[in-house]
């Protein structure tokens, strides 16, 4: 990436070897990612063969529709926007050692409030202000929703895995109730919210169908990465994550930080919902739950909670899901195969990472 900037004219020998090391490191990382993906594709291919589908044709479609066709790549990049926000939220929580498994509930509540708010706001204020307001209330609602698990964890020591899981079930149902009863569009027969007109949605990038939400998502995840790695606030959160007791001894306000972490994490999940609605869907139908949150969790882990690596994994996830959807339609394979494919990729990547770690350790010893 930035190899050519490192060694300058007066570079010492040390710098040169460093550059070579980074180059080897990047190559190594690339191999360690692509190798397992290939293995996973072979395993998933065997499953396809077993049910009588030509795996090569399937993968051909996935690649063509997810990556190489102009329309496909645009859809893939569009799909990335909410996933990036979710990943950013998870990075904050996981680095601070907190398991926010409630992303889907926060996502849906954010989506529903944005869907309810945006069509109203655009009628009374300029479009950019309306969308900003929709984003803000989606974020605020998701933050408020995360207060219960946050306070329980911060002041009662209640395990957040259980509370966030509960809140995600509650949130999913509540989102449905809101769509069906409160925010329902009276002019349609199917229960859904009012639809945001296409011209009022987030602007498209250049002459493509890619929503500008992608840029917002990229900005969010990069800012989160920099805050977590470069600022005092991020350092505090990482200390809390590494050793909460030591953090108390170091004089950090752990309770306050815990609440802050939940608020940021949930707020980003709420923004993910908003960006999907305002950028792509335009409305929320009843019982809509894409369950992005669950799929992003392992991806963030595999990226070792590194923002830049997470972008890569989110891209991969996006290609697989968009490509898989098209391939499924063409070849008569149910869309569910994408889930199988993603899970095999995740497991093989996790295994590869483990063996790589093991190998490095034994070489050092």
């Amino acid at each position, binding site marked *: 990436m930035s190899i050519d900037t490192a060694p300058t004219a007066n570079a010492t020998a040390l710098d040169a070897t460093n550059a070579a090391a980074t180059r080897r490191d990047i190559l190594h990382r690339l191999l360690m990612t692509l190798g397992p993906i290939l293995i996973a594709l072979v395993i998933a291919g065997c499953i396809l063969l077993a049910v009588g589908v030509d795996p090569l044709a399937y993968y051909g479609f996935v690649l063509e529709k997810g990556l190489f066709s102009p329309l496909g790549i645009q859809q893939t990049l569009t799909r990335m926007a909410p996933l990036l926000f979710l990943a950013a939220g998870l990075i904050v929580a996981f680095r601070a050692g907190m398991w926010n498994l409630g992303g889907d509930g926060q996502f849906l509540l954010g989506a529903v409030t944005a869907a309810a708010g945006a069509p109203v706001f655009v009628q009374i204020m300029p479009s950019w202000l309306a969308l900003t307001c929709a984003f803000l209330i989606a974020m605020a609602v998701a933050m408020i929703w995360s207060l219960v698990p946050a306070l329980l964890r911060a002041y009662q020591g209640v395990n957040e*895995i259980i509370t966030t899981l509960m809140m995600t079930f509650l949130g999913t149902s509540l989102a449905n109730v809101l769509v069906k009863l409160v925010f329902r569009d009276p002019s349609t027969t199917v229960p859904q919210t009012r639809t945001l007109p296409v011209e009022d949605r987030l602007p498209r990038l250049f002459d493509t169908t890619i929503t500008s939400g992608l840029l917002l998502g990229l900005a969010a995840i990069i800012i989160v990465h920099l805050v977590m790695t470069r600022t005092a606030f991020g350092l505090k959160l990482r200390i809390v994550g590494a050793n909460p007791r030591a953090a108390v001894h170091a004089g950090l306000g752990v309770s306050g930080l815990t609440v802050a972490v939940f608020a940021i994490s949930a707020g980003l999940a709420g923004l993910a919902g908003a960006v999907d609605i305002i950028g792509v869907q335009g409305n929320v139908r009843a019982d809509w739950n894409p369950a992005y949150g669950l799929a992003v969790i392992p991806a963030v882990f595999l990226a070792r909670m590194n923002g830049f690596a997470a972008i890569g994994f989110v891209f991969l996830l996006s290609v697989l899901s968009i490509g898989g959807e098209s391939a499924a339609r063409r070849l008569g394979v149910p869309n569910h195969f994408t889930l199988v494919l993603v899970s095999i990729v995740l497991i093989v990547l996790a295994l590869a990472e483990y063996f790589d770690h093991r190998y490095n350790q034994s070489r050092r010893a």
Partner: protein
Amino acid sequence: MTGLFSEVFLSALLFGAVTAAIPLLLAGLGEQMSEKAGVLNIGIEGMMLAGAYLGFVGAFYSGSLWLGFLTGAAGGVAVALIMALLCVRIGLNQIVIGIALTLGLEGLTALLHHFQFSRSYPRLPAADATVIPLLSDIPVIGPAFFKHHLIVYLAVALVFAMGYLYRRTQLGLNLQAAGDKPAALDVAGIDVIRTRTIAVLTTGALAGLGGAYLANVGAGLFIPFITNGAGFLGIVLAMLARGRPIWVLFGALLFGVCLSLTTAMQVAGINIPTDIIQMLPFLAVMIMLVLFGRRASLPAALGIPYERGAR
């Protein structure tokens, strides 16, 4: 409204509650065992789905419900085997693998069902109930609690068997130690890995059985994603029960009543969106957590892979 509280309605409601509670009970008991041994089993939803699918297929082709339960349990064990290998032996992150397994099994069972039955959803004949004499004659409660398939009574008996196992046997103590202080168990000469593997495989068998019950007795058919979060409810039940099987039973019944209420309200034609009623059990849990949360405790080494000699 008076129709709501008729004897028939109440007993149907309670009957439904028991039927809905059994899969949760089995999943919760299984999860409890994993958690005791220090493994947070997020893949339990996947194990239940494997059990539901294979249990249904087994019963469908053999015509025997019992064989279905057996294949269902085997399906759960098969998924648990992957979990045990990856998370206990190799020590990969339990949450990553658990979620990956759940996603994968959701897809795989839906896929297999599609290729086997296409868009049709064949039904199994209704399970025959074992009627307990005398007790089943009690009004309301009798038909609700004492006219179920034999496996329901076995599942309830299991609650007490597990209680005995945890408190009175060496294996029970080993399990507890594997979750609280695995290093101490190791020093005592007992294989932590093996203890945890036993726990995870048992979890798989119970979750698979729960899934098979859900498909074969509860619904009488298999539809993709049939578990609908039952596995996650099992995790919650296990965490709330704080290591005591009897509390898993009470929790499962509470959830069962709420789930049954959903169906009953629909049948009675009451016009509340089902989503509101579906929120009841989760709301109940959250209220309990707010009230008693401070006292909830989990094994010290939960979620941490054990590696010999590592600090």
